[in-house]
């Protein structure tokens, strides 16, 4: 029963990753365009077959993805009594709130209005499923579900930022901001895996 609940939780959170991978898979089915040799370098920098989100949609995805992890962290801070989990959750809330602030400042500077899209909608739907499942868990069972979810969520987000959002971004400042956030996300994943090993 416990494993089943956690399994469902992971499936829901991985929806982000599955959607991301589906978009990549669909784009890979497209025939590669014939390009002149002299423009190959430019194509390599901005792949024509990259899944396309415009900058306004990317801005929305970034803010939603960060806010979701802030929300998960706040639930953990309310429910958990495990020092390792509490420390991890505090870092997630603090870091992702700062990223939201920076992202908001950047989109204001760029004059971009974040735009709702299928990926951000799917993220929010996935969040509702996870939060519902968190409600029914307490103690060590909750701690394990929260940390397992954080590992899966960060893996999915890292894949989406790297494979979809960075290649799609048109504005160079936005593209650089997405690139700059990668070490933080990878560090969070490492922290989540360390916490996962400690509470098993």
């Amino acid at each position: 029963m416990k494993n089943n609940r956690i399994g469902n939780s992971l499936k829901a959170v991985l929806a982000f990753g599955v959607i991301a991978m589906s978009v990549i898979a669909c784009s890979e089915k497209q025939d590669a365009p014939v390009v002149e040799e002299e423009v190959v370098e430019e194509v390599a920098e901005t792949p024509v077959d990259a899944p396309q989100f415009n900058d306004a949609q990317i801005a929305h995805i970034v803010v939603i993805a960060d806010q979701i992890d802030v929300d998960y962290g706040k639930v953990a801070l309310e429910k958990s009594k495990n020092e390792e989990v509490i420390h991890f959750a505090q870092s997630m809330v603090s870091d992702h709130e700062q990223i939201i602030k920076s992202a908001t400042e950047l989109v204001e500077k760029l004059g971009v209005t974040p735009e709702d899209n299928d990926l951000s909608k799917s993220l929010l739907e996935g969040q509702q499923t996870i939060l519902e499942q968190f409600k029914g868990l307490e103690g060590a069972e909750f701690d394990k579900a929260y940390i397992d979810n954080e590992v899966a969520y960060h893996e999915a987000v890292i894949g989406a930022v790297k494979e979809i959002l960075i290649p799609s971004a048109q504005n160079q400042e936005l593209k650089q901001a997405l690139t700059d956030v990668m070490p933080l996300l990878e560090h969070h994943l490492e922290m989540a895996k360390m916490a996962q090993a400690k509470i098993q």
Partner: protein
Amino acid sequence: MKVWSLGLMALWILSCQSTDKEAVNTVVQEEMNSKSEVKTSTLDTIVIEGMQFKPAEMTINPGDTLVWINRDIVMHNVTDDPKEEWTSGDIAVGETWLMVPTSDVEYFCTIHPTMKGKIKITK
């Protein structure tokens, strides 16, 4: 008073520097008391970026001042590892923190515990 002078001088020098992300070594002349004796000490810079202290290991001379500059995208701190006997407190994005180590130091960021650094002082 001397410490304040050194700190102010260090910050003035930092404000004059370019945004070069490489660690920099700047010689600061510290006026010693009212005599004309002048002693030089070094201001060594550790840049925090990409979730790392750069350089992660540094050897300095006794009396040298270290400055950590947070050029990352989130807040960090510099804290004694592992006893947490001293800490910089939060170093916000774009801010700096100064320290004159009196012995070898191992430190980490409590917010991101896998971020670690070492300072060795030459004998």
